[in-house]
């Protein structure tokens, strides 16, 4: 019975993470996006905590805490302030419309299911389902990165991608170094956020202004 329950709860949490990823894809305002991301991190924290509980792995609580404090609170707040500071609180420019993006997302989820469900059943079913969801989250995060023009939303995409990784890592029972990895990734994200702030990257990841790109080392034709 307990096995069933653990499976169901983990399944529920992981599924919610995918759902929240879709919600992110749907957002077209920055503030709302940040809020949804906080929710994403929250679900992750819950999922990790549940895994910690299930696996009897207390160190995973650290990861859950990081997710909760750093990702659900600190980062969204910091990004919020950056948006205010840089004055870019407007609508998100998407490359592809929301509708097609959602469709693409569906396709990706289906893809990850197909890929992962080929894994033989002898592998831990929990891991198997978990991995399918994690892969979905990773792919959706990547999709977000490539369909958004705005730097902040791209960062959000990267962070949700990374959440998928943490989900996968915590789902892998007994995997060493999970905490270290989640810390390392948090540092990485911090770097990115600082980078955005330092380099005043308003519009895109790429450059401060378009003219600089044209000067770009004479390589421009």
């Amino acid at each position: 019975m307990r096995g069933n329950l653990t499976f169901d709860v983990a399944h529920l949490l992981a599924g919610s993470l995918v759902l929240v990823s879709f919600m992110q894809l749907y957002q077209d305002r920055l503030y709302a996006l940040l809020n949804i991301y906080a929710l994403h991190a929250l679900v992750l924290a819950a999922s990790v905590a549940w895994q910690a509980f299930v696996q009897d792995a207390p160190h995973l609580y650290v990861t859950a805490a990081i997710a909760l404090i750093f990702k659900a609170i600190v980062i969204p707040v910091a990004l919020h302030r950056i948006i205010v500071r840089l004055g870019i609180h407007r609508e998100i420019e998407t490359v592809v419309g929301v509708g097609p993006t959602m469709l693409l997302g569906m396709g990706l989820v289906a893809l990850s299911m197909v890929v992962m469900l080929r894994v033989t059943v002898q592998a831990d079913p929990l891991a198997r389902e978990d991995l399918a969801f994690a892969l979905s989250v990773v792919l959706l995060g990547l999709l977000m990165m490539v369909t958004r023009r705005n730097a902040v939303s791209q960062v959000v995409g990267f962070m949700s991608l990374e959440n998928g990784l943490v989900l996968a890592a915590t789902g892998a029972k007994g995997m060493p170094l999970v905490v270290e990895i989640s810390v390392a990734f948090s540092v990485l994200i911090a770097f990115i956020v600082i980078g955005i702030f330092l380099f005043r990257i308003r519009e895109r990841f790429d450059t401060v202004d378009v003219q600089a790109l044209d000067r770009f080392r004479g390589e421009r034709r």
Partner: protein
Amino acid sequence: MTADALTGVLLIPILAAAIFAMLPGYRITARLNVVASLLTFLTAVCLFVVEPRSGAYLLVDDLNKVFVVLTTFVGFTTSVFSASYIDHEIEIGRLTPAFVRFYHAMYQTLMFAMNLALIANNIGLMWVAIEMATLTTVLMVGIYRTHEALEAAWKYFILGSVGIALALFGTILIYMAARPVIGEGLYAMVWTVLITRAAEFDPALLNVAFVFLLLGYGTKVGLAPLHAWLPDAHAEGPTPISAVLSGLLLNVALYALLRFKMLLALNPAAIAPGPLMVTMGLISCVFAAFMLYRRRDIKRMFAYSSIEHMGIIVFAFGMGGALANFAGLLHMTMHSLTKSAIFFAVGHIAQVKGTQKIADMGGLTVTNPVLGWGLVLGVVAIAGLPPLGIFMSEFLVVSSTFARQPWLAAILVLGILVALGGLFLRLNTIAFGEVRGPVQRSDASYVPMFLHFAIVFAAGIYMPPALVLGFENVAKLLG
């Protein structure tokens, strides 16, 4: 003793990094940098002398011995080059002493990270080390703090981060595949354990894992279409770093890829990793070859040439078989030596001419014969002309492939030819023709450059039997 050598390879750089971070004088750190690199190299050579012992974290086998020695050797010669390069940079005020201090510390940290990645027995540790190396180089690429440098570093950083993430996902998947067989915990990530049980792993998981690892580490190797960070990072960073990037870091990532390829090859139910690697290799080779033509920045051009050669190497390993693996290994070694030597030359040339734009340099063999002919020699070597080493490896790759897969070899040959055309097109304007750009003498040290060329030349003519034996063992290991 073995443990000493192993830990020495790691300890010397990391200690040196710590010391350099604290030492104020940049001249002394430059000298010390050379000494530390030399020591690391000598320690690495010791690995050959003493039979190594593998633990849960560190591993020495035939495969990584070659890589470690190559890495530490090029690290050493690059440090020699770096000393004279940095002197000049400070003279013209492009770098301040504080940055140089940071630079040397980072240099040793990078060496540490690469060595760690190479001798790590744990795939998680290997991942960590490679990411550490990546982040270190990001910092070094941006060291000039010009707009372009920061931009290149930023691009490298973002693309690298995604690569990191993908590689990690692959690593997790490998663990997941190994866990039911080996059991939970550390040993499911230990390479020596994984390799013995690989046949029992779940093939579907392995497949997905390999896709992620191929893309994740492939980003570091610079395979097209994941290469985008590479040309800019090479072009905008300090030249010693370009040399290390092309000569070493790409190899380290490739090493990781090879490890996982071996793992996959042992599982008969999993997809063959060969065709994937062959495809990526061919795409990279042909793509980079065409990209050479429109280059206006000399360092970026050679960066694309690195992509091309990485493509060839990955192709060779993808083809597999004793001959192709041998060729791939040889090609990798030769490419490391040649490309870093080319960057040594290019660094001095850029300093003499005060620019990296090809249009502003010309007739170099007239104004600076040694540098100019050095570059000519380098391009001749990298284009795969005899009697230099790359010719031998290309000969082996192509001729051994053609009998098996004629079309693949034909495409590869096309790439090689197109690349040769691109390289010589630019070489002609740089080395020959009318003199363009400022004319000044270069008082740089040519020793590292010609040392590399001498080795490459010698290898093209005569390979010592011991070396051959070593390579053959590795080739067998790679299957």
